[in-house]
């Protein structure tokens, strides 16, 4: 039986993982685009992304696009698996 993941379960991180796992494999999303889509602040999103990255659930790439620095975020295979297991654990808690 799947266990709840305390890292993912935090509300903002749950939002982030839900959103980026919605994208296909290998698809990366821009930091600002993600922030606007989820209605989070720069600092809030940055802090939660750092936590998820430290756990290996997401990968963060920084690169220049049209001479401007951009940060792209993508779910790792481990992150997708952990998120799927977390969702399965949530479903298992619901009354049958």
């Amino acid at each position, binding site marked *: 039986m799947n*266990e*709840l993941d*305390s890292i993912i*379960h935090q*509300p903002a991180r*749950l*939002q*982030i993982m*839900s*959103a*980026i796992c*919605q*994208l*296909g494999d*290998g*698809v*990366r*999303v*821009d930091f600002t*685009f993600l922030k*606007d*889509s*989820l*209605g989070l602040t720069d600092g809030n999103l940055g802090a939660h992304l750092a936590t998820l990255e430290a756990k290996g659930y997401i990968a963060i790439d920084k690169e220049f*696009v*049209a001479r401007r620095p*951009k940060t*792209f975020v993508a779910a790792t295979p481990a992150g997708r698996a952990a998120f799927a297991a977390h*969702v399965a654990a*949530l*479903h298992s*808690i*619901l*009354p049958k």
Partner: protein
Amino acid sequence: MNISPEEAAQALREIEASRSAMRRAIQTHRGHLYLWLWGCIWVVVSIINWMYEQRALPAMLWIMGFGCLATVVIGMVQGGQIRARIDPRFMKVCATLLIFGYCVWPFLLGDLRSYDFRSYKGAYGYFTVIWMQLYMVAGIWFDSFWFWVGLAVTVIIVTTLMFAPALFWGATLLLGLVLFGSGFLVRNTWH
């Protein structure tokens, strides 16, 4: 960690809300802008070719150039928001098709200056069908929708060219409208 069924249900609702927010946010990244753009271009080009045939060529090249530029701009803007890793093999297959279709065959195997395409319509059909082969390759690689669009356009172009030349420009106009309309389909039904 332990949570109650109510908390689990609330978490699942939040997950669905985030997924919906992301679905709405990426709605503009489904490829429909390209279909709308090239659908409009195809309609305009078909009309001016229908009216002026070979004399429409300079205007057509300008319109196509604008379309290519707009395509690059859309790609750059959207690529700055959501970026998918494009399979390098797919890009190489597309490049091979384009190089053969636009350079090797017309310029080397058949000299474009003297090569008889049978008619202006034939040349137009040829260069159009090359692009449709790219749609078909993209369909084989990513989503069968593009394959069927490419195949349908190819069949209609070739059939009208060979068996009903009088309907050729009308068919290309209709296909422009089909491309434009399929933009709505892609935008509203793909997730």
